[in-house]
């Protein structure tokens, strides 16, 4: 079964979903993610699953909510404006503790924006997005391989925590063709879904809801959600750290930007600059601890993002006292992808050689 294929990132996501046992997909067309529904509309019906092109992103997130409540692994995908429309549903799913995978192949905003790669949905993805005090599990792939691996993982994490999980990619990752090894990672040990709606046969009725009107009921519920988020921080943080041991400056970047910054890293090291890189893979839970530890010795950080500064706030909150966190951003749009040389120039602006 092990196969290496040369496919678009979007297709890697769709294939991972199928390999992870997802048989239900609900979506609405939008560039640059349409390869996902196109692929799944071919494959799912043959596997005994269902594909619905819904009337809107609002309908599709609510179909996802229903399918998930019925106990099935299911997925929806969209981009920018469509993800905005899904926020109410995501809030309900988080409040009702329903798993489900939502893919955001991000494009630019605000408004209709554009279809170029963007990281401007970092805040929306990691800070709630919809109403109420909740978080999504947010995974940020940087390659075709990770589009596959992390999508698989997203289904496991969503089930583990009974919480929606989001893949935050972008048009570059979605459209780029790369070799991908279709090897399902080991599935986690997951709890039984005894909460599923299947008909109350031989058991009391199951109720899935987010309305809590009783005295202190909602506060208790919200703290329980919070405890879940704390557990995610303990058990499921993922990041990649490169050459940080002796680094004088550490680049912080995720997704496509981290991919580009890795070229910069090689150039910088070739020129004798002691540069390292930390790439958060889980944007929520954010890898706070590695930033804290790394910044005990390294006092210079440069956060690079395809926006005007979003993840940089989490980097600043995570680093140890006395650390300077610089920011370089390119708001997304056609022709606005930062180049490795450009990032190297930014490094040189702030990089001070050791006085030793």
């Amino acid at each position, binding site marked *: 079964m092990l196969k290496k294929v040369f496919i678009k990132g979007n297709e890697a996501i769709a294939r991972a979903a199928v390999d992870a046992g997802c048989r239900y997909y609900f979506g609405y067309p939008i560039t640059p993610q349409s390869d996902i529904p196109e692929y799944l509309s071919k494959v799912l019906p043959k596997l005994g699953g269902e594909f619905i092109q819904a*009337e809107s992103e609002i309908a599709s997130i609510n*179909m996802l*909510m229903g399918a998930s409540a019925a106990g099935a692994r299911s997925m929806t995908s969209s981009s920018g404006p469509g993800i905005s429309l899904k926020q109410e549903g995501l809030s309900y799913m988080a409040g009702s503790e329903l798993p489900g995978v939502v893919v955001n192949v991000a494009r630019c905003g605000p408004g209709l924006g554009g279809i170029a790669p963007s990281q401007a949905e970092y805040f929306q993805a990691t800070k709630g997005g919809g109403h109420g005090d909740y978080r999504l599990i947010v995974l940020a792939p940087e390659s075709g391989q990770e589009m596959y691996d992390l999508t698989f993982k997203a289904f496991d994490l969503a089930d583990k925590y009974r919480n929606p999980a989001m893949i935050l990619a972008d048009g570059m990752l979605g459209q780029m063709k790369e070799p991908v090894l279709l090897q399902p990672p080991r599935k986690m040990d997951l709890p039984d879904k005894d909460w599923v709606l299947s008909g*109350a046969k031989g058991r009391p009725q199951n109720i899935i809801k987010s309305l809590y009107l009783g005295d202190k009921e909602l506060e208790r519920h919200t703290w329980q959600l919070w405890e879940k988020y704390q557990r995610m921080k303990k058990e499921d943080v993922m990041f990649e750290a490169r050459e940080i041991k002796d680094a004088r400056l550490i680049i912080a970047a995720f997704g496509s930007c981290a991919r580009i910054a890795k070229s910069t890293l090689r150039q910088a090291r070739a020129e004798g600059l002691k540069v390292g890189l930390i790439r958060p893979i889980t944007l929520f839970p954010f890898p706070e601890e590695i930033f804290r530890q790394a910044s005990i010795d390294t006092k210079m950080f440069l956060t690079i993002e395809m926006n005007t500064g979003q993840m940089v706030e989490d980097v600043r909150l995570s680093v140890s006292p006395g650390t300077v966190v610089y920011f370089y951003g390119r708001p997304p749009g056609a022709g606005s992808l930062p180049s490795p040389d450009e990032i190297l120039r930014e490094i040189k602006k702030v990089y001070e050689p050791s006085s030793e």
Partner: protein
Amino acid sequence: MKKVFERPKSLKDTPSHFCPGCHSGLIHRLVAEAIDYFKIQERTIGVASVGCSVFLYNYLDVDVIEAPHGRAPAVCTGIKRVRKQNIVFTIQGDGDLAAIGTSEIIHTANRGENITVIFINNAVYGMTGGQMAPTTLLGQRTTTSPYGRDVQQEGYPVRMVELLSGLEGSAFIARAAVNKPANLMKAKKLIRRAFEMQINNMGFSMVEVLSACPTNWGLKPLEANRRVEEEMIPCFPLGVFKEKIQGSEDSRG
């Protein structure tokens, strides 16, 4: 002695939160009776909508999920596609179904989703304090149409039954009232028939039930009942508007 009246098995024995004279309790009861009649309690899944019907799980002893405002038909769709052997239904108000959720109800009906919708039309937004609904009658005063609904300003009451009957995916579409015993008996039959449609795999079924809202109409229960008879029924005529025949060309059963 013969028992002539008892609580349906699938109706829970709990105090009601509905206001005196409200028809919602009766309608919930009719749904429970249909569930008992077909002996489907153990495979029925209810979807609560946002409005006075949000506490569905307090009344019906079946599995229930709460949907966002207007989205119950989409949530039903997701459940039914996964669990085709289960019976999936929702109870929606007129703000929920005919305003914010117009898109979902139309496309769910048009896809011919094999689910059942009970649509409670009380001509106002009940839970939020009696604001104007799409089904508010012309001239009717509400908290947001204080001078009475005016065609020039707010357009006409929306007739969802007539609208949805025009869609080919609809299998059974009817309108009922429960303001007097004769209507109640008809409503009971129609709700039962809607569930039967789903059991027979016929596609989308919906029964609109006209309901009094004495609290928000500012009327006594009896006056409110009279308004259903004298003002609502003329605007929203009762009857079966669409019924696919099993085994016919356009049926899926």
